Every structure is written in C-alpha cells, then in structure tokens.
C-alpha cells in the first residue's frame, strides 16, 4: 500500500483541477520537454517582468497524474514570485526528488510541493515529477538571455 502515500489528496486535486493550464501570450520563452521513457510531455511559457518578477507561467501537456499535478503546483508557486526565489524552490524540489526518500522535505521552501515527497521513493516516477520543473528552469534561462 505504499503507492497510496504517493497519491496524496493534493496531487489528485491538482491533477483533476489543474491550475493555470493552457498556453498564454505574451511570453519571453517557450520550451518543450519530453520524458522519452514514458512519453510524458510539456510545453511551457514564461513571462518575466521588472525586477526579476515572474508574471506568468503557462503550460500545456500530457502525462500521468504526477507529471501533470507537478506542473500545476509549479504554476502556483512560481507565478507572482521572483526568478531567484522560484529557482530556489526548484533547487529544493530537485534535491528532494533525487533523495530516494532519504531526506526530510523543507515545507517552508516547498509549500504545496511538499506533497510530492512520497514520489522520491519511486525512482521510475521521479522524472515525472521533475518534468515541468526542469522545463521551467530551462524557460527561465532562455527568458533572461
């Protein structure tokens, strides 16, 4: 019954009711990332404002509940935040995902993304959770170029 702990209510909620889904204009950069082993994919747009403010993160994609919910949570955390703060969350999220479940999640940094802690115990699913977050990092780098 370990998988039940991976499918946290919050993850299922985001999967069923994704936040901020759909590609929007204007944007500074658009990226398309795929997970070749399972075919999950995401297209992500980032619009930055003055002072490193993240004005919008919009996305569209297909995949499992973990990958789609991760994109929705990322949208909520990054939109309205700053580039620096949001990349800090990405870093902590990546650290958590790559920990094989051996480190405690820092809820102060991660907010809702802490719900994905259980995914770290499933190496095959870590890539699902990271797909949108890696796409975001890539899009931010391209936006600031």
């Amino acid at each position: 019954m370990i998988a039940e702990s991976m499918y946290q209510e919050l993850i299922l909620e985001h999967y069923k009711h994704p936040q901020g889904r759909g590609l929007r204009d204007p944007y500074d950069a658009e990226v398309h990332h795929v997970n070749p082993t399972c075919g999950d994919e995401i297209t992500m747009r980032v619009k930055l404002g003055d002072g490193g403010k993240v004005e919008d993160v919009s996305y569209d994609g297909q995949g499992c509940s973990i990958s789609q919910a991760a994109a929705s949570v990322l949208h909520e955390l990054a939109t309205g935040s700053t580039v620096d703060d949001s990349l800090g969350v990405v870093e902590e999220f990546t650290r958590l995902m790559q920990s094989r479940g051996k480190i405690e999640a820092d809820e102060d940094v991660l907010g809702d993304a802490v719900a994905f802690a259980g995914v770290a115990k499933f190496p095959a699913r870590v890539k699902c959770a990271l797909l949108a977050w890696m796409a975001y990092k890539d899009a931010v780098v391209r936006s600031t170029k």
Partner: protein
Amino acid sequence: MVDTGLDVERIRKDFPVLSRELPGGRPLIYLDSGNSAQKPTQVVEAMREHMAMHYANVGRAMHALGAESTEAYENARDKVAAFVGAPDRDEIVFTKNASEALNLVAYAFGNPIGEDPRFRLGPGDEIVISEMEHHSNIVPWQMLAQRTGATLRWFSVTDSGRLDLSNLDELVTERTKIVSIVHQSNVLGTVNPVAPVLARVREVGALMMLDASQSVPHQQVDVAALGVDFLAFTGHKVVGPSGIGVLWARAELLEAMPPFLGGGEMIEAVWMDRSTYAPAPHKFEAGTPPIVEAVGLGVAVDYLSEIGMDAVVRHEHELTAYTLGALGEIPGLKVIGPLDLADRGGTVSFTLEGIHPHDVGQILDDNFGVAVRVGHHCARPLHLRFGIPATTRASFYLYNTTAEIDALVRGLHHVRKVFA
C-alpha cells in the same frame, strides 16, 4: 478455472518466481510476459550446470571442455532449428536479440560489400513496413533508408487493430526490395496474415521478413510453412534467457548476404589487407557468442515442445477470451486491439478514461502485486495512430490463470476509485 488441457498448477511449480512474495506480503501476479517471460527451473539449472561443469569457449578450444561446450552450443542450434521448422540447422544464426537480427538483415541491403542484386538498394527503391511495428522493426529500416536514399513506406492499421491490406498492390510494387512486418503485434495482439502479403511480395520479386518476437513464444511457428525469407525472434520471450536472439534466413540468402559484425570466428582466412569469411551461420556470429544463453534457449524450446505449443495456444486463447469479457465490464475501459478472438494472441492493451497508464500500473503493482506494462511499449507510431500517448498492457503465457485476471480486474476497479 477453465480446462484447456494444460496442467497450469504443475507448470507454475516449474517457475519458482511465481510463488514468491513481493515486499509488503503482496503475491506476484505476473502479466508482463510480452515484455519478458519468466524462466523455468529446467532452463536455470541447465545454464548453471553448463557454466559450472562444461564451460569453455566454443569453436576454437582444442580440449575436452572446448568440445563439450561447442557440442552444447551447436546442440542448441539443432533444437532451435527443429522448434521453428528450419529446413537446415545452418539457417539459424544466434544474435544478441531480435533487434540485432533485424539490424543484421537491414545492414545487408545497399551494402557495397554485397553483390547480390536482391540486396542492392538506392534511390527509387522502396522498403515496406507497417504502422504496428515495434521500434526494432522501424528504426533499422529508417536508418537503411537514410544510408541509401531508398524510400520507407508502411501499411496502416484499421480502427479494429488489423493490418490494412486494402492498398497492398499500391504499396508493394516493382520498386519494393523488402517487406518487413510483425507476425504478432506486441500491443494489439493481432496475428497478421502472412500469405496474402507474401504472394504480392513474390509477384514483385521482393524479399519478406517477419518480426516473430511475439509469435514464436505463443504459437507453433514453422518457417518452411510460412515461406518467408527472414524471421527474427528473441530468447527471453520463449522462457529462455536474455542476451540471445535468433535470425532464421533461407540458406542461399545467408550465403548471398555480407557479414554484419567483423571479428573472431566469422572468418575463413585473414590477411593484413583483406579477409574471407566463414560459411553461415558462423559468418554472422563474430566474437565469443552467448554460449550459456544458447544452452538455456535450447532447453527452453524443448520445455515448450514437451508441453506442446497447441496446448499453449489453447490456454492463452481461453485466457484472452476471459480477459476481454471481464474488461468489458469495467466502465471507461477501452481495449486497443481486436475484440474478436480470431487471429489474436494473449496480449490485451487498453486505456482507462481520465487515468494515465502510469498511474494504473503503479497502483496495480503497489496494491495488488499485479505486474503489467505501461507506456507505448516501444511502438510509439501505433499509439500515435490511435491518438493516445500510452496504454496499459496485460500479456499472458502458459503459466497464467483466470484467478490472476480476476486480480487484475479487482485492481482496475480500485484504480478507478482512487481517481474518481
């Protein structure tokens, strides 16, 4: 339990893994034999015995162990030849897997080392495959087309999951040099009709290859009766080990084909500037071959022969009928592949509305110990054709039972509850 003339309880005892427990006390319900089959004790023991007591390199060691090892390796070739009805044992080439067998044949075309006109390939020539192929019967031909300037064409697939032969005569023409299609689909379960395609292939003077990775394990395949030119399959799906595959080809074609990999054992004589090659099959078996794996494969096909492929076919037919019936009761479930049992094997792929296959597979595994495969099953173009990214696939073998299918169905109901 449906009686199919197969003593499944006895068979299951030959496969120790089937009685193990997974972490958390889950039973193992293995419905992923289309991916790779489990191994009977007979195979494991024969490999252990060979490695422990008879092991030496083959073909070149001039001592007692070398002779024993060579004999065991070549005996395996005899067994495999008999299992697929090869008219000549030297028509059996051991490869690493089915992919290598397919690549080996693709490499023979448009190859400047070869002189036989049947293998000449260039701009204006055509290669024909189908939309239901595994990537291993797509990518080698794409690469061949890129190397030579030849054109790649393909059969489409009907909505019910059958090969669309309505344009056979337009697709296979005088320009066609090779037609390579799957014998039994690893996603749809469809068993393709060989005879009408082959008749057209002969009419236009082309060659025909079958990817039999999913048919050799599940039906009596007789290469002579099929009448094709090349056939590939792999050891690990016929209850044998991984690391060994088989290419069967007509002897005169093997003779006409250039070698694939160069190295030890594939030569006749070597000078610093040139070499001559050993006759087939050794021409295509460069380097130390998978010796222990060959021994295991020989025992594996003997194991299946003893049980009887007819009985295996009947058993899987019953399981498939039972599964299609049971899955039909699950709301939102759609089978991707034929719903009728004619020319259909025991592979059932499906989608569950609103739930991604990865989530389905995860919950089936973690809550019920049900091992299925999820994803595109190395057949992405086929999934694109059906407009879906992935499916969940249950695939059966001689050791599966209807009780295991009941567990799958219970698991699927639970999955629906989690995502309701």
